[in-house]
Protein backbone atom coordinates (compact mmCIF):
# COMPACT_ATOMS: atom_id res chain seq x y z
CA UNK A 1 0.00 0.00 0.00
CA UNK A 2 2.83 2.36 0.81
CA UNK A 3 4.70 1.59 -2.37
CA UNK A 4 1.74 2.62 -4.43
CA UNK A 5 1.77 6.34 -3.77
CA UNK A 6 5.28 7.11 -2.55
CA UNK A 7 7.98 5.20 -4.43
CA UNK A 8 8.85 5.13 -8.10
CA UNK A 9 9.42 7.52 -10.97
CA UNK A 10 5.78 7.32 -12.07
CA UNK A 11 4.67 8.87 -8.80
CA UNK A 12 7.50 11.41 -8.84
CA UNK A 13 6.46 12.79 -12.20
CA UNK A 14 2.71 12.22 -11.93
CA UNK A 15 2.46 13.99 -8.58
CA UNK A 16 5.09 16.52 -9.65
CA UNK A 17 2.91 17.43 -12.62
CA UNK A 18 -0.16 17.86 -10.40
CA UNK A 19 1.81 20.12 -8.07
CA UNK A 20 3.23 22.08 -11.01
CA UNK A 21 -0.35 22.68 -12.11
CA UNK A 22 -1.20 23.83 -8.63
CA UNK A 23 1.83 26.16 -8.50
CA UNK A 24 0.89 27.72 -11.81
CA UNK A 25 -2.70 28.24 -10.73
CA UNK A 26 -1.49 30.17 -7.66
CA UNK A 27 -0.47 33.05 -9.93
CA UNK A 28 -3.49 34.99 -11.01
CA UNK A 29 -3.86 35.57 -14.73
CA UNK A 30 -3.66 39.34 -14.31
CA UNK A 31 -0.50 39.04 -12.26
CA UNK A 32 1.12 36.69 -14.77
CA UNK A 33 0.30 38.98 -17.67
CA UNK A 34 1.71 42.03 -15.94
CA UNK A 35 4.93 40.40 -14.68
CA UNK A 36 5.54 38.01 -17.54
CA UNK A 37 4.27 39.98 -20.54
CA UNK A 38 3.87 43.71 -19.97
CA UNK A 39 7.00 44.28 -17.91
CA UNK A 40 9.43 42.44 -20.19
CA UNK A 41 8.05 44.42 -23.13
CA UNK A 42 8.50 47.69 -21.24
CA UNK A 43 12.05 46.72 -20.33
CA UNK A 44 13.07 45.76 -23.86
CA UNK A 45 11.75 48.96 -25.41
CA UNK A 46 12.65 51.09 -22.41
CA UNK A 47 16.31 50.11 -22.47
CA UNK A 48 16.41 50.38 -26.23
CA UNK A 49 15.02 53.89 -26.12
CA UNK A 50 17.36 54.87 -23.30
CA UNK A 51 20.66 53.42 -24.36
CA UNK A 52 20.28 52.39 -28.00
CA UNK A 53 21.79 55.62 -29.35
CA UNK A 54 24.54 55.77 -26.73
CA UNK A 55 25.80 52.33 -27.68
CA UNK A 56 25.46 52.79 -31.39
CA UNK A 57 28.31 55.26 -31.05
CA UNK A 58 30.40 52.35 -29.82
CA UNK A 59 29.39 50.24 -32.78
CA UNK A 60 26.96 48.00 -30.89
CA UNK A 61 23.59 46.99 -32.33
CA UNK A 62 21.62 47.29 -29.11
CA UNK A 63 18.53 45.53 -30.48
CA UNK A 64 20.71 42.43 -30.90
CA UNK A 65 22.70 42.99 -27.72
CA UNK A 66 19.85 43.66 -25.26
CA UNK A 67 17.30 40.77 -25.42
CA UNK A 68 19.63 38.16 -23.85
CA UNK A 69 20.10 40.57 -20.92
CA UNK A 70 16.35 40.96 -20.42
CA UNK A 71 15.99 37.16 -20.64
CA UNK A 72 18.58 36.73 -17.86
CA UNK A 73 16.84 39.42 -15.81
CA UNK A 74 13.55 37.57 -16.10
CA UNK A 75 15.13 34.22 -15.25
CA UNK A 76 16.20 35.86 -11.99
CA UNK A 77 12.65 37.04 -11.49
CA UNK A 78 11.31 33.50 -12.02
CA UNK A 79 13.75 32.24 -9.38
CA UNK A 80 12.76 34.94 -6.91
CA UNK A 81 9.11 34.01 -7.40
CA UNK A 82 10.02 30.40 -6.59
CA UNK A 83 11.56 31.52 -3.29
CA UNK A 84 8.53 33.66 -2.55
CA UNK A 85 6.16 30.73 -3.00
CA UNK A 86 8.30 28.31 -0.99
CA UNK A 87 8.42 30.75 1.91
CA UNK A 88 4.67 31.28 1.81
CA UNK A 89 4.05 27.52 1.51
CA UNK A 90 6.14 27.12 4.59
CA UNK A 91 4.39 29.91 6.48
CA UNK A 92 0.89 28.65 5.82
CA UNK A 93 1.66 25.00 6.51
CA UNK A 94 1.34 23.68 2.95
CA UNK A 95 4.88 22.40 2.97
CA UNK A 96 4.31 20.43 6.18
CA UNK A 97 1.16 19.01 4.69
CA UNK A 98 2.90 17.85 1.51
CA UNK A 99 5.76 16.39 3.50
CA UNK A 100 3.37 14.43 5.73
CA UNK A 101 1.45 13.02 2.78
CA UNK A 102 2.32 9.61 1.38
CA UNK A 103 3.51 11.11 -1.89
CA UNK A 104 6.86 10.93 -3.63
CA UNK A 105 9.56 12.83 -1.68
CA UNK A 106 10.72 14.64 -4.79
CA UNK A 107 7.28 15.59 -6.11
CA UNK A 108 7.31 19.01 -4.44
CA UNK A 109 10.66 19.77 -6.10
CA UNK A 110 9.54 18.49 -9.50
CA UNK A 111 6.35 20.52 -9.13
CA UNK A 112 8.36 23.66 -8.42
CA UNK A 113 10.75 23.03 -11.31
CA UNK A 114 7.86 22.34 -13.67
CA UNK A 115 6.10 25.58 -12.77
CA UNK A 116 9.36 27.55 -12.96
CA UNK A 117 10.12 26.13 -16.39
CA UNK A 118 6.71 27.11 -17.70
CA UNK A 119 7.12 30.66 -16.39
CA UNK A 120 10.65 30.83 -17.78
CA UNK A 121 9.53 29.64 -21.23
CA UNK A 122 6.70 32.14 -21.26
CA UNK A 123 9.04 35.00 -20.44
CA UNK A 124 11.61 33.88 -23.02
CA UNK A 125 8.93 33.68 -25.71
CA UNK A 126 7.61 37.16 -24.89
CA UNK A 127 11.07 38.72 -24.79
CA UNK A 128 12.27 37.09 -27.99
CA UNK A 129 9.07 38.09 -29.80
CA UNK A 130 9.44 41.67 -28.57
CA UNK A 131 13.10 41.66 -29.49
CA UNK A 132 12.20 40.40 -32.94
CA UNK A 133 9.99 43.43 -33.49
CA UNK A 134 12.90 45.66 -32.46
CA UNK A 135 15.35 43.90 -34.75
CA UNK A 136 16.75 40.97 -32.77
CA UNK A 137 17.51 37.85 -34.88
CA UNK A 138 18.84 34.37 -34.20
CA UNK A 139 21.73 34.32 -36.63
CA UNK A 140 23.19 30.88 -35.91
CA UNK A 141 20.39 28.58 -36.96
CA UNK A 142 17.58 26.73 -35.16
CA UNK A 143 19.86 24.45 -33.16
CA UNK A 144 21.66 27.38 -31.60
CA UNK A 145 18.29 29.02 -30.93
CA UNK A 146 17.18 25.88 -29.07
CA UNK A 147 20.45 25.96 -27.17
CA UNK A 148 19.68 29.57 -26.25
CA UNK A 149 16.31 28.58 -24.78
CA UNK A 150 17.74 25.51 -23.01
CA UNK A 151 20.60 27.49 -21.46
CA UNK A 152 18.17 30.20 -20.32
CA UNK A 153 15.85 27.70 -18.64
CA UNK A 154 18.87 25.90 -17.15
CA UNK A 155 20.03 29.20 -15.70
CA UNK A 156 16.55 29.88 -14.26
CA UNK A 157 16.41 26.44 -12.61
CA UNK A 158 19.94 26.73 -11.21
CA UNK A 159 19.28 30.12 -9.63
CA UNK A 160 15.90 28.80 -8.53
CA UNK A 161 17.61 26.01 -6.56
CA UNK A 162 19.64 28.63 -4.69
CA UNK A 163 16.74 31.00 -4.03
CA UNK A 164 14.53 28.07 -2.99
CA UNK A 165 17.04 27.11 -0.32
CA UNK A 166 16.61 30.60 1.09
CA UNK A 167 12.83 30.50 0.68
CA UNK A 168 12.67 27.18 2.52
CA UNK A 169 14.44 28.44 5.63
CA UNK A 170 12.21 31.48 5.89
CA UNK A 171 8.57 31.98 6.72
CA UNK A 172 8.45 35.52 5.41
CA UNK A 173 7.93 35.63 1.63
CA UNK A 174 8.08 39.43 1.41
CA UNK A 175 11.44 39.77 3.11
CA UNK A 176 12.90 36.86 1.15
CA UNK A 177 12.03 38.47 -2.14
CA UNK A 178 13.19 41.91 -0.95
CA UNK A 179 16.55 40.41 0.08
CA UNK A 180 16.91 38.56 -3.19
CA UNK A 181 16.19 41.70 -5.21
CA UNK A 182 19.04 43.47 -3.47
CA UNK A 183 21.35 40.54 -4.27
CA UNK A 184 20.38 40.00 -7.88
CA UNK A 185 20.38 43.59 -9.07
CA UNK A 186 24.13 44.21 -8.62
CA UNK A 187 24.95 40.76 -10.03
CA UNK A 188 22.96 41.53 -13.14
CA UNK A 189 23.98 45.14 -13.62
CA UNK A 190 27.67 44.65 -12.94
CA UNK A 191 27.86 42.14 -15.74
CA UNK A 192 27.95 42.47 -19.51
CA UNK A 193 24.13 42.58 -19.45
CA UNK A 194 23.42 46.18 -20.44
CA UNK A 195 26.78 47.51 -21.59
CA UNK A 196 29.89 45.61 -22.69
CA UNK A 197 32.56 44.96 -20.07
CA UNK A 198 34.92 47.57 -21.49
CA UNK A 199 32.43 50.38 -20.77
CA UNK A 200 32.95 49.86 -17.02
CA UNK A 201 35.59 51.71 -15.01
CA UNK A 202 38.86 49.79 -15.22
CA UNK A 203 39.03 48.73 -11.58
CA UNK A 204 35.83 46.70 -11.73
CA UNK A 205 36.34 45.13 -15.15
CA UNK A 206 38.00 41.94 -13.85
CA UNK A 207 34.88 41.23 -11.79
CA UNK A 208 32.56 42.03 -14.68
CA UNK A 209 34.44 39.70 -17.02
CA UNK A 210 34.72 36.74 -14.66
CA UNK A 211 31.40 36.50 -12.87
CA UNK A 212 28.87 33.78 -13.76
CA UNK A 213 26.13 36.09 -15.06
CA UNK A 214 28.56 37.43 -17.66
CA UNK A 215 29.54 33.86 -18.55
CA UNK A 216 25.90 32.96 -19.20
CA UNK A 217 25.29 36.18 -21.15
CA UNK A 218 28.36 35.64 -23.31
CA UNK A 219 27.15 32.12 -24.11
CA UNK A 220 23.61 33.33 -24.89
CA UNK A 221 24.96 36.04 -27.20
CA UNK A 222 27.24 33.54 -28.91
CA UNK A 223 24.22 31.27 -29.49
CA UNK A 224 22.17 34.17 -30.85
CA UNK A 225 24.79 35.96 -32.92
CA UNK A 226 26.81 33.07 -34.32
CA UNK A 227 30.58 32.91 -34.31
CA UNK A 228 32.55 30.66 -31.97
CA UNK A 229 30.06 29.14 -29.50
CA UNK A 230 31.77 26.09 -27.97
CA UNK A 231 34.06 28.03 -25.60
CA UNK A 232 31.51 30.42 -24.05
CA UNK A 233 28.83 27.71 -23.81
CA UNK A 234 31.22 25.34 -22.07
CA UNK A 235 32.23 28.04 -19.57
CA UNK A 236 28.58 28.83 -18.86
CA UNK A 237 27.61 25.17 -18.47
CA UNK A 238 30.50 24.56 -16.07
CA UNK A 239 29.46 27.55 -13.97
CA UNK A 240 25.85 26.34 -13.88
CA UNK A 241 26.85 22.77 -13.02
CA UNK A 242 29.03 23.98 -10.14
CA UNK A 243 26.40 26.34 -8.80
CA UNK A 244 23.65 23.74 -9.17
CA UNK A 245 25.68 21.23 -7.13
CA UNK A 246 26.12 23.71 -4.27
CA UNK A 247 22.58 25.08 -4.43
CA UNK A 248 20.82 21.73 -4.58
CA UNK A 249 22.66 20.41 -1.52
CA UNK A 250 21.56 23.53 0.35
CA UNK A 251 18.01 23.26 -0.96
CA UNK A 252 17.68 19.56 -0.04
CA UNK A 253 19.00 20.28 3.46
CA UNK A 254 16.53 23.13 3.88
CA UNK A 255 13.66 21.01 2.53
CA UNK A 256 14.35 18.21 5.01
CA UNK A 257 14.19 20.64 7.92
CA UNK A 258 11.20 22.66 6.79
CA UNK A 259 8.10 22.08 8.91
Amino acid at each position, binding site marked *: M*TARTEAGLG*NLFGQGLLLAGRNI*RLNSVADTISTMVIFPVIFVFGFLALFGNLLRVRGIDYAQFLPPAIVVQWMFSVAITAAFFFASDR*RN*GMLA*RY*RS*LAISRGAVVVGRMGADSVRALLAIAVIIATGYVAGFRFQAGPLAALGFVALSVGFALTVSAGTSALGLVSRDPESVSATLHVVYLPLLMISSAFVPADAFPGWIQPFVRNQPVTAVLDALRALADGGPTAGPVLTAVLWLAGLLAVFSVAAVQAFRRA*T
Partner: protein
Amino acid sequence: MHGAGVEVERLRKVFGKKTAVEEVSFAVELGAVVGLLGPNGAGKTTVVNCLSTLLPMDGGRASVAGHDVADDPAGVRASIALTGQFAAVDDVLTGRQNLVLFGRLLKLDRRAAAARAEELLTRFGLSDAADQPVRSYSGGMRRRLDLAASLVVKRPVIFLDEPTTGLDPAGRQEMWEVVAGLREEGATLLLTTQYLEEADRLADRIVLVDHGKVIAEGTPGELKRQVGGQVCEVRAEPREQALRALRERLAEVSETGGVITVRGADTGTLAEVVRVLAGAGVETDDIRLRRPTLDEVFFTLTGHRSKEEVGS
Protein backbone atom coordinates in the same frame (compact mmCIF):
# COMPACT_ATOMS: atom_id res chain seq x y z
CA MET B 1 -0.89 -3.42 14.68
CA HIS B 2 -0.39 -4.52 18.23
CA GLY B 3 -3.64 -3.05 19.41
CA ALA B 4 -2.01 0.36 19.49
CA GLY B 5 -2.70 3.23 17.15
CA VAL B 6 0.18 5.29 18.45
CA GLU B 7 2.95 4.29 20.85
CA VAL B 8 5.48 6.81 22.06
CA GLU B 9 8.37 5.92 24.36
CA ARG B 10 10.72 8.50 25.84
CA LEU B 11 10.49 10.75 22.79
CA ARG B 12 13.08 13.53 22.85
CA LYS B 13 13.65 16.46 20.48
CA VAL B 14 16.24 19.24 20.73
CA PHE B 15 16.56 22.36 18.59
CA GLY B 16 20.10 23.63 18.98
CA LYS B 17 20.40 24.43 22.67
CA LYS B 18 16.67 24.42 23.30
CA THR B 19 15.07 21.20 24.44
CA ALA B 20 11.60 21.26 22.94
CA VAL B 21 10.62 17.79 24.13
CA GLU B 22 12.54 16.38 27.06
CA GLU B 23 10.83 13.06 27.53
CA VAL B 24 7.35 12.17 26.45
CA SER B 25 5.72 8.72 26.55
CA PHE B 26 2.11 7.86 25.93
CA ALA B 27 -0.09 5.62 23.82
CA VAL B 28 -3.26 5.99 21.80
CA GLU B 29 -5.22 2.74 21.54
CA LEU B 30 -7.07 1.94 18.33
CA GLY B 31 -10.36 3.78 18.31
CA ALA B 32 -9.44 6.09 21.18
CA VAL B 33 -9.26 9.90 21.24
CA VAL B 34 -6.31 11.19 23.23
CA GLY B 35 -5.81 14.86 23.98
CA LEU B 36 -2.29 16.19 24.32
CA LEU B 37 -2.99 19.15 26.56
CA GLY B 38 -0.56 21.87 27.53
CA PRO B 39 0.22 25.57 27.37
CA ASN B 40 1.90 27.29 24.44
CA GLY B 41 5.47 26.09 24.02
CA ALA B 42 4.92 22.87 25.96
CA GLY B 43 6.17 20.81 22.99
CA LYS B 44 2.86 19.44 21.72
CA THR B 45 3.34 20.43 18.10
CA THR B 46 6.90 19.14 18.11
CA VAL B 47 5.61 15.75 19.25
CA VAL B 48 3.06 15.70 16.43
CA ASN B 49 5.69 16.80 13.90
CA CYS B 50 7.97 13.96 15.01
CA LEU B 51 5.15 11.41 14.83
CA SER B 52 4.15 12.55 11.36
CA THR B 53 7.80 12.20 10.15
CA LEU B 54 8.26 15.94 9.57
CA LEU B 55 11.03 16.10 12.15
CA PRO B 56 13.59 13.43 13.05
CA MET B 57 13.53 12.37 16.72
CA ASP B 58 16.63 12.89 18.87
CA GLY B 59 15.84 10.08 21.27
CA GLY B 60 13.32 7.41 22.19
CA ARG B 61 11.13 5.51 19.80
CA ALA B 62 7.63 5.77 18.43
CA SER B 63 5.34 3.78 16.20
CA VAL B 64 2.15 4.71 14.38
CA ALA B 65 -0.30 2.04 13.24
CA GLY B 66 2.42 -0.55 13.74
CA HIS B 67 5.05 1.30 11.67
CA ASP B 68 8.21 2.47 13.40
CA VAL B 69 8.52 6.23 12.86
CA ALA B 70 12.30 6.16 12.45
CA ASP B 71 12.62 2.95 10.38
CA ASP B 72 9.52 3.09 8.21
CA PRO B 73 8.51 6.73 7.71
CA ALA B 74 6.80 5.91 4.41
CA GLY B 75 4.61 3.35 6.20
CA VAL B 76 3.72 5.98 8.79
CA ARG B 77 2.79 8.57 6.17
CA ALA B 78 0.54 6.03 4.46
CA SER B 79 -1.31 5.51 7.76
CA ILE B 80 -1.87 9.08 8.96
CA ALA B 81 -3.99 12.10 8.24
CA LEU B 82 -2.35 15.28 9.57
CA THR B 83 -4.23 18.49 10.14
CA GLY B 84 -1.66 21.06 11.17
CA GLN B 85 -1.89 24.26 13.15
CA PHE B 86 -2.42 26.37 10.07
CA ALA B 87 -5.24 25.84 7.65
CA ALA B 88 -2.96 24.47 4.93
CA VAL B 89 -5.13 24.98 1.88
CA ASP B 90 -4.61 27.18 -1.17
CA ASP B 91 -6.35 30.52 -0.98
CA VAL B 92 -6.84 31.11 -4.66
CA LEU B 93 -8.24 27.67 -5.38
CA THR B 94 -11.82 26.73 -4.53
CA GLY B 95 -12.63 24.33 -1.72
CA ARG B 96 -13.45 21.65 -4.25
CA GLN B 97 -10.23 22.20 -6.25
CA ASN B 98 -8.22 21.86 -3.06
CA LEU B 99 -9.82 18.53 -2.16
CA VAL B 100 -9.58 17.16 -5.70
CA LEU B 101 -5.88 18.05 -5.84
CA PHE B 102 -5.15 16.07 -2.67
CA GLY B 103 -7.21 13.15 -3.92
CA ARG B 104 -5.32 13.09 -7.21
CA LEU B 105 -1.97 13.34 -5.44
CA LEU B 106 -2.91 10.23 -3.50
CA LYS B 107 -3.72 8.36 -6.68
CA LEU B 108 -7.49 8.58 -6.80
CA ASP B 109 -8.61 8.81 -10.41
CA ARG B 110 -10.39 11.94 -11.60
CA ARG B 111 -13.85 10.60 -10.93
CA ALA B 112 -13.09 9.10 -7.53
CA ALA B 113 -11.36 12.30 -6.43
CA ALA B 114 -14.36 14.38 -7.48
CA ALA B 115 -16.79 12.02 -5.72
CA ARG B 116 -14.75 12.00 -2.53
CA ALA B 117 -14.47 15.80 -2.59
CA GLU B 118 -18.24 16.10 -2.94
CA GLU B 119 -18.81 13.67 -0.08
CA LEU B 120 -16.47 15.54 2.27
CA LEU B 121 -17.82 18.97 1.32
CA THR B 122 -21.34 17.81 2.16
CA ARG B 123 -20.28 16.15 5.37
CA PHE B 124 -18.40 19.20 6.66
CA GLY B 125 -21.12 21.65 5.68
CA LEU B 126 -19.15 23.28 2.88
CA SER B 127 -21.38 22.42 -0.09
CA ASP B 128 -22.63 25.98 -0.55
CA ALA B 129 -19.12 27.40 -0.65
CA ALA B 130 -17.58 24.49 -2.56
CA ASP B 131 -16.88 26.49 -5.70
CA GLN B 132 -15.82 29.71 -4.02
CA PRO B 133 -12.13 30.49 -3.64
CA VAL B 134 -10.93 29.63 -0.14
CA ARG B 135 -9.94 33.30 0.29
CA SER B 136 -13.62 34.06 0.93
CA TYR B 137 -14.02 31.40 3.66
CA SER B 138 -14.41 32.17 7.35
CA GLY B 139 -11.78 30.87 9.77
CA GLY B 140 -14.03 28.01 10.81
CA MET B 141 -14.74 27.00 7.23
CA ARG B 142 -11.04 27.00 6.39
CA ARG B 143 -10.30 24.69 9.30
CA ARG B 144 -13.05 22.31 8.31
CA LEU B 145 -11.75 22.28 4.74
CA ASP B 146 -8.26 21.69 6.10
CA LEU B 147 -9.52 18.71 8.09
CA ALA B 148 -11.42 17.43 5.06
CA ALA B 149 -8.23 17.72 2.98
CA SER B 150 -6.45 15.40 5.38
CA LEU B 151 -9.30 12.87 5.22
CA VAL B 152 -9.48 12.63 1.42
CA VAL B 153 -8.04 9.13 1.68
CA LYS B 154 -9.15 7.12 4.73
CA ARG B 155 -6.30 6.63 7.21
CA PRO B 156 -6.28 4.60 10.44
CA VAL B 157 -4.74 7.39 12.56
CA ILE B 158 -5.64 11.08 12.57
CA PHE B 159 -3.46 13.86 14.06
CA LEU B 160 -5.22 17.13 14.84
CA ASP B 161 -2.84 19.89 15.89
CA GLU B 162 -4.68 22.67 17.74
CA PRO B 163 -7.79 22.44 15.60
CA THR B 164 -9.56 25.43 17.10
CA THR B 165 -6.77 27.86 18.01
CA GLY B 166 -7.73 31.28 16.73
CA LEU B 167 -11.34 30.42 15.95
CA ASP B 168 -14.32 32.37 17.27
CA PRO B 169 -16.78 30.52 19.55
CA ALA B 170 -19.11 29.64 16.68
CA GLY B 171 -16.25 28.30 14.58
CA ARG B 172 -14.95 26.32 17.54
CA GLN B 173 -18.37 24.83 18.19
CA GLU B 174 -18.66 23.71 14.55
CA MET B 175 -15.20 22.18 14.65
CA TRP B 176 -16.05 20.31 17.86
CA GLU B 177 -19.11 18.81 16.24
CA VAL B 178 -17.03 17.61 13.30
CA VAL B 179 -14.43 16.03 15.60
CA ALA B 180 -17.14 14.46 17.75
CA GLY B 181 -18.52 12.91 14.56
CA LEU B 182 -15.11 11.37 13.77
CA ARG B 183 -14.95 10.03 17.28
CA GLU B 184 -18.32 8.36 16.99
CA GLU B 185 -17.15 6.66 13.80
CA GLY B 186 -14.36 5.07 15.82
CA ALA B 187 -11.44 7.08 14.49
CA THR B 188 -8.10 6.84 16.28
CA LEU B 189 -7.32 10.44 17.06
CA LEU B 190 -4.45 12.33 18.65
CA LEU B 191 -5.49 15.88 19.38
CA THR B 192 -3.33 18.67 20.74
CA THR B 193 -4.91 21.64 22.42
CA GLN B 194 -4.29 24.39 24.92
CA TYR B 195 -7.95 24.57 25.84
CA LEU B 196 -9.01 22.50 28.82
CA GLU B 197 -12.62 22.67 27.83
CA GLU B 198 -11.75 21.21 24.44
CA ALA B 199 -9.80 18.29 25.87
CA ASP B 200 -12.50 17.68 28.48
CA ARG B 201 -15.14 17.57 25.79
CA LEU B 202 -13.47 15.62 23.01
CA ALA B 203 -10.86 13.32 24.55
CA ASP B 204 -11.28 9.90 26.17
CA ARG B 205 -7.91 10.36 27.81
CA ILE B 206 -5.76 13.40 28.43
CA VAL B 207 -1.97 13.56 28.48
CA LEU B 208 -0.94 16.75 30.24
CA VAL B 209 2.37 18.17 28.92
CA ASP B 210 4.40 21.07 30.24
CA HIS B 211 7.99 22.10 29.43
CA GLY B 212 8.47 19.05 27.20
CA LYS B 213 7.44 16.51 29.85
CA VAL B 214 4.31 14.54 30.65
CA ILE B 215 3.13 15.71 34.05
CA ALA B 216 -0.10 13.76 34.32
CA GLU B 217 -2.20 11.34 32.38
CA GLY B 218 -5.64 9.81 32.65
CA THR B 219 -9.30 10.24 31.85
CA PRO B 220 -10.67 13.70 32.56
CA GLY B 221 -12.35 12.19 35.67
CA GLU B 222 -9.11 10.61 36.92
CA LEU B 223 -7.22 13.85 36.48
CA LYS B 224 -9.81 15.73 38.42
CA ARG B 225 -9.47 13.20 41.25
CA GLN B 226 -5.68 13.67 41.20
CA VAL B 227 -6.11 17.09 42.72
CA GLY B 228 -7.28 15.13 45.72
CA GLY B 229 -10.85 14.63 46.83
CA GLN B 230 -13.39 17.31 46.34
CA VAL B 231 -13.73 21.04 46.70
CA CYS B 232 -15.87 22.71 49.31
CA GLU B 233 -17.31 26.10 48.33
CA VAL B 234 -18.64 28.47 50.93
CA ARG B 235 -20.38 31.83 50.78
CA ALA B 236 -20.42 33.51 54.14
CA GLU B 237 -20.73 36.99 55.70
CA PRO B 238 -18.66 38.76 56.86
CA ARG B 239 -16.27 37.13 54.43
CA GLU B 240 -12.99 38.36 55.94
CA GLN B 241 -13.89 36.94 59.31
CA ALA B 242 -14.93 33.59 57.79
CA LEU B 243 -11.69 33.38 55.83
CA ARG B 244 -9.57 34.09 58.88
CA ALA B 245 -11.42 31.47 60.95
CA LEU B 246 -11.12 28.78 58.28
CA ARG B 247 -7.44 29.46 57.63
CA GLU B 248 -6.67 28.92 61.31
CA ARG B 249 -8.11 25.41 61.23
CA LEU B 250 -7.79 24.08 57.68
CA ALA B 251 -5.18 23.88 54.90
CA GLU B 252 -5.66 24.97 51.25
CA VAL B 253 -8.16 27.70 51.79
CA SER B 254 -8.44 30.31 49.06
CA GLU B 255 -10.87 32.98 47.97
CA THR B 256 -11.95 34.24 44.55
CA GLY B 257 -14.90 36.39 43.62
CA GLY B 258 -16.54 36.20 47.02
CA VAL B 259 -16.41 32.42 47.15
CA ILE B 260 -14.19 30.66 49.67
CA THR B 261 -12.75 27.39 48.39
CA VAL B 262 -11.38 24.57 50.54
CA ARG B 263 -9.51 21.89 48.61
CA GLY B 264 -8.85 18.28 49.51
CA ALA B 265 -12.23 18.12 51.11
CA ASP B 266 -14.47 15.18 52.02
CA THR B 267 -17.77 14.89 53.85
CA GLY B 268 -15.95 15.26 57.16
CA THR B 269 -14.56 18.60 56.00
CA LEU B 270 -18.05 19.85 55.30
CA ALA B 271 -19.05 19.29 58.92
CA GLU B 272 -15.81 20.84 60.09
CA VAL B 273 -16.39 23.98 57.99
CA VAL B 274 -19.89 24.38 59.32
CA ARG B 275 -18.65 24.00 62.90
CA VAL B 276 -15.76 26.49 62.46
CA LEU B 277 -17.99 29.09 60.87
CA ALA B 278 -20.64 28.72 63.55
CA GLY B 279 -17.96 29.03 66.22
CA ALA B 280 -16.68 32.23 64.62
CA GLY B 281 -20.14 33.70 64.62
CA VAL B 282 -20.30 33.95 60.84
CA GLU B 283 -23.49 33.55 58.91
CA THR B 284 -23.27 30.88 56.15
CA ASP B 285 -25.21 31.75 52.99
CA ASP B 286 -24.36 28.69 50.93
CA ILE B 287 -22.16 25.66 51.27
CA ARG B 288 -21.62 22.78 48.88
CA LEU B 289 -19.21 20.06 47.77
CA ARG B 290 -18.17 19.64 44.13
CA ARG B 291 -15.50 17.86 42.06
CA PRO B 292 -12.61 20.05 40.94
CA THR B 293 -12.61 21.50 37.41
CA LEU B 294 -9.83 20.72 34.94
CA ASP B 295 -8.71 24.31 35.38
CA GLU B 296 -7.91 23.56 38.98
CA VAL B 297 -6.14 20.37 37.97
CA PHE B 298 -4.09 22.28 35.48
CA PHE B 299 -3.19 24.93 37.98
CA THR B 300 -2.29 22.43 40.66
CA LEU B 301 -0.07 20.39 38.35
CA THR B 302 1.65 23.08 36.30
CA GLY B 303 1.70 25.95 38.75
CA HIS B 304 0.30 28.32 36.16
CA ARG B 305 -3.08 29.11 34.76
CA SER B 306 -4.41 27.68 31.52
CA LYS B 307 -4.83 29.86 28.46
CA GLU B 308 -8.44 30.72 29.07
CA GLU B 309 -7.71 32.04 32.53
CA VAL B 310 -4.74 34.08 31.37
CA GLY B 311 -6.80 35.58 28.60
CA SER B 312 -9.71 36.73 30.75
